């Protein structure tokens, strides 16, 4: 049962990573590419890492609990740093005067 949950969680994380990778390659411009980059860092890693934390948790001993807590700590650090990094990169793009992509022939922003 635990193994099944681990597989589901890690596989779901990999789906996010795959989608993020495709998004980084396929999206048209700088700003929209940052969106999947930030997404896969956070949601992909929280799923995959919680799967791994669950995997090392059993049988429950002090050591295994500590190991899974350390794995979850990675998630905390990524949740703090990744959105901030994305924010900083977007900020740098705006300050450098990079125009967002618009659909060719689409309605211009008012």
């Amino acid at each position, binding site marked *: 049962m635990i193994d099944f949950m681990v597989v589901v969680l890690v596989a779901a994380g990999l789906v996010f990573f795959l989608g993020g990778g495709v998004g980084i390659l396929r999206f048209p411009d700088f700003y929209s590419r940052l969106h999947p980059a930030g997404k896969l860092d956070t949601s992909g890693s929280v799923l995959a890492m919680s799967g791994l934390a669950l995997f090392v948790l059993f049988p429950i001993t002090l050591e295994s609990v500590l190991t899974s807590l350390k794995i979850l700590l990675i998630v905390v650090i990524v949740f703090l*740093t990744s959105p*901030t990094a994305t924010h*900083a990169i977007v900020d740098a793009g705006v300050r450098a005067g990079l125009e967002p992509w618009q659909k060719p022939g689409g309605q211009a922003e008012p």
Partner: protein
Amino acid sequence: MKLLGFLIVLITGAVLIWATGEFPDWGDPGSPASVHVSPRYIEKTLEETSVPNAVTSVLADYRGFDTMFETTVIFAAGISCFMLLRLFGKERPETLHYRHLLTGLTIRVRRRKQSPEQLEEFEPMDSLWTPHDLILRTLCRFLIPFIQLFALYVIAHGHHSPGGGFQGGVILGASLILLAISQDMQSALKRIPERTLAMLAALGVSVYAGTGALCLVMGSNFLDYAALAGLFRVDPVEARSLGIFLVEVGVGIAVMATMILIYHNLASEGRLDEGL
């Protein structure tokens, strides 16, 4: 021409791949690298130096000279970066910019006479724009102590796990570079002034060489830490481990100071005013 280059690349690559057939197998115990000194290091490290991590003991003890001059190379890199890039005696520009600390407004002052330098609520700005972002500043403020704590752990725990002076020093230096990026270079320089950085870089190398010279004074070979046993009042095997730790601390200090020195000089083109 393109075709010729392509052919040369193909032939060279094919020869290189063909030559790999002569290599010993991966992990082959009979390969030249494994029969010479490696078994001795692997078998004797713990009983000779009481250091569980064989890599650390090989770096800092068995091949202590090598690592000492590596540290010297890093020190030389920092000093030559300073020599090449640092500009002294900058001319004051015609207009100066000041930021009002309470409102965040930027004012421009034309002449020197009116400069509000003596007022507390203004801070001088060296360039028109500086990073002034609340999210970045807060997060870096929160993270930097943890990064530094981790760096100290990497230095002190180098005997048992991957790490040591070089890695720990790089992390320590990176934390201060992060401070210089997220706030500004002036506040980073307020923490560790340039003069102190240069002193620290030299101090790190001196700690390493001094530990070696101390062994010489105690009547043994250079960098033979067993001679320090009488000084620390431990047995000679334990003294080797302590000697390695001292040396690692020296490496850490030198690497940290050199990293920051190189960053400051590169990022501000040697003026050390504002940075990127």
